[in-house]
């Protein structure tokens, strides 16, 4: 009885969040839908959407953050130096309430693999939580911007950084580290929201005790059975510098009381130096938020040869499948497949390619095994051509959105293949641990970028759009059946959620790699906000001013992006739109 009351209370609370028109976390809700229930902006009127206000972030690196909105305030986190700006959105015109400078260690810029980005803050009960590039997690008083606590989760000198947006679950701030490219051992940690004290930490590699695989863990597939697989699936000791660090997205189901997150790719990239499955890198985990204990796991890409990892977001949706309602987890992975899992049991429901894939030939439905194409195995002194998807993945960090109205998943992504070669590399703490070089290019017959709507019941694309550059920012779906996304050449676009028809677009001052959000302003009107400012891994050629004559620059992204410098320029800017 008490459990039932608590459960329904939880449900009411999560519904209440949506009803107020706030956007309190990067993904809008714990299910990771990026769906706004606001209905003022519709397909019929979105063409009249107009700029309400804008604000320079004062920084020029990739603006991958989501502005979050709660309690009449918008909180924006800039790229390094991770400045937090709070705006009063109850009154017209971007009144700045406070600004907070966390002053991260500038040395951390050297261990940020993919630009010095920050993906946003999280709001909970009058507090704002964020992480800084130099591995600190902070809590601020939402009203005053006063620092409440800060906890260091590691040392930048070891190669570790944090760029993720935290998720607050049951009084805990949950976040993972970055640095797989530097041989950092990945983890996800939970801190007490009131004090910052570390409650638990679960590593991506190593003994079961470190991975928090214990009595609660239920192996679903044969490959998940056995003790200390995080040790035995590596050459001796290699798990200690084995990567799996990629502070990706975290989602949470309050009814099942399960957290979902994916671990990053293994280190070094040169797979010849790490024989074995390399567990638990490139793995989806379900965990208990109170203890961090793993309940199920599924390694999507065992012995990841191409640096994919599984850090992309998992979106939690309820779907009618095979005649019954299933609690489903949808995950569009870098390896090129959209996975649908039963999120209670960890059972694989389907895995379908969403781009042309050459590195594998599908997923075995019975065993869950990815059928690797052996011709794409790395070999010393041999160039491996047409590796598709490239190491940047068919989709990278850029989060998809889900509309419960259309039951479609809106996926920003890229069409990239690469030529790649490996060489032996040594681990020097704080320096890259790769042993591989790449040159990426557009997949044959495709533009670099794309945006599509995935029907998870029919297991096919409902529609798809072509974009000149990778669509490196997030998607936003609204109850007005309008879907928003930004492009690296600076367009914020609104399209018809059912057919993909373009309804409106706005040209921003710089390329967009941020996450559009929607909220209810103090005037009772619906707003759409997005950060522009090109950067991120795909945008490094501009944000770090790279020399694109070297196609291996930006870990192989520069060759594919050589036209970007002529299409856009640096500069962080917040844009907020409304109907006139």
């Amino acid at each position, binding site marked *: 009885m008490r459990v039932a009351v608590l459960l329904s209370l939880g449900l009411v609370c999560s519904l209440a969040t949506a009803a107020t028109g706030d956007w309190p976390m990067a993904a809008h809700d714990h299910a990771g839908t990026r769906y706004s229930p606001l209905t003022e902006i519709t397909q019929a009127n979105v063409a009249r959407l107009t700029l309400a206000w804008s604000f320079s972030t004062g920084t020029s690196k990739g603006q991958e953050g989501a502005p979050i909105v709660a309690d009449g305030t918008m909180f924006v986190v800039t790229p390094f130096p991770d400045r937090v700006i709070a705006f009063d959105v109850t009154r017209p015109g971007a009144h700045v309430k406070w600004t907070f400078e966390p002053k991260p260690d*500038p*040395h*951390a*810029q*050297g*261990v*940020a*693999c*993919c*630009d010095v980005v920050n993906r946003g803050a999280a709001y909970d009960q009058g507090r704002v939580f964020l992480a800084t590039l130099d591995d600190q997690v902070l809590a601020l008083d939402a009203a005053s911007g006063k620092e409440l606590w800060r906890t260091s989760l590691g040392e930048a*000198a070891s190669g570790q950084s944090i760029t993720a947006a935290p998720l607050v679950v049951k009084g805990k701030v949950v976040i993972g580290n970055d640095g797989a*490219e530097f041989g950092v051992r990945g983890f996800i940690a939970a801190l007490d929201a009131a004090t910052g004290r570390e409650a638990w930490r679960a590593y991506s590699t190593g003994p079961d005790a470190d991975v928090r695989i214990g009595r609660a863990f239920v192996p679903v597939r044969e490959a998940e059975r056995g003790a200390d697989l995080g040790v035995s699936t590596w050459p001796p000791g290699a798990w200690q510098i084995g990567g799996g660090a990629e502070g990706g997205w975290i989602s949470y189901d309050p009814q099942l009381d399960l957290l979902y997150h994916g671990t990053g790719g293994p280190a070094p990239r040169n797979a010849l130096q790490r024989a074995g499955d390399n567990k638990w890198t490139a793995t989806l985990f379900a965990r208990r938020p109170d203890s961090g204990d793993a309940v199920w796991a599924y390694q999507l890409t065992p012995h990841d040869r191409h640096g994919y990892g599984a850090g992309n977001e998992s979106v939690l949706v309820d779907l009618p499948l095979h005649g019954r309602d299933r609690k489903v987890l949808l995950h569009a992975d870098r390896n090129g497949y959209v996975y649908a899992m039963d999120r209670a049991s960890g059972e694989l429901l389907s895995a379908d390619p969403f781009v042309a894939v050459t590195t594998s030939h599908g997923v075995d439905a019975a065993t869950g095994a990815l059928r690797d194409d052996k011709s794409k195995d790395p070999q010393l*002194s041999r*160039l491996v051509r047409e590796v598709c998807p490239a190491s940047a993945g068919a989709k990278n960090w850029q989060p998809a959105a889900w509309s419960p109205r259309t039951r479609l998943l809106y996926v920003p992504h890229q069409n990239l293949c690469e*030529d*790649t*070669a490996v*060489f032996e*590399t*040594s681990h*020097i703490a*704080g*320096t*890259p*641990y*790769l042993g591989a*070089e*790449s*040159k990426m290019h557009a997949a044959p017959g495709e533009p670099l970028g794309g945006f599509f709507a995935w029907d998870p019941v029919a297991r096919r694309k409902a529609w798809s759009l072509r974009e000149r550059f990778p669509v490196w920012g997030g998607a936003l779906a609204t109850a007005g059946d309008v879907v928003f996304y930004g492009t690296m050449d600076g367009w914020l676009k609104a399209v018809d959620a059912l057919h993909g028809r373009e309804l409106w677009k706005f040209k921003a001052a710089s390329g967009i790699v941020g996450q559009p959000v929607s909220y209810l302003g103090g005037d009772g009107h619906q707003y759409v906000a997005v950060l522009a400012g090109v950067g991120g891994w795909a945008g*490094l050629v501009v944000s*770090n*001013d*790279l*020399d*694109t*004559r*070297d*196609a*291996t*620059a*930006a*870990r192989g992204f*520069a060759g594919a992006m*050589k*036209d970007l*410098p*002529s299409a856009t320029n640096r500069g962080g800017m917040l844009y907020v739109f409304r109907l006139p």
Partner: protein
Amino acid sequence: MSSACRSAAAALLLAVALPGCEREARRFDRMPTPPDERAQADALGARPAGPPGRGMRERAAAGDYREDNAYLLSQGKMYYRWFNCVGCHAQGGGGSGPALSDASWAYGHSPGDIFTTIMDGRPNGMPSFRGRIPEEQAWEIAAYVRSLSGLAPGDAATNRGDVLSGGQPEYLREPLRPQDKPK
């Protein structure tokens, strides 16, 4: 042939041959550079305060550094890869670290500047390799880094390596000036 003419021809021959000699020179008779006081102090854990790299620049000026020698440049290229410079700076085009093949230098492009950058690190992300890279090798890496933007003589700079080719081999490179940037 007059004697004046002969000596002019000899001078010409010498002028052509001399750089070639430096290109191929191997110095086996030379003792390894003795560690300077600063490095010694480092090893003892007592690092004297003072402007970094001064001694290094003086040594570079004193000729303890060569970038017209093919062997040293190819060694530098090898160490550039071994010490993971390539992971951040790629084959000069950059990545998480800045490009080294263009004409923009945040901390200077003299051999001494680059040596100091490698050994002491820089505040915006460049780690210190002191204690990780022997000084001799750091000088060779510095010379190679200069060759990435065409600052080292082309007749000594390395040819393309047995790796995934990123662009022009070093011996063909020229500094990328701001006005050369793709528009």
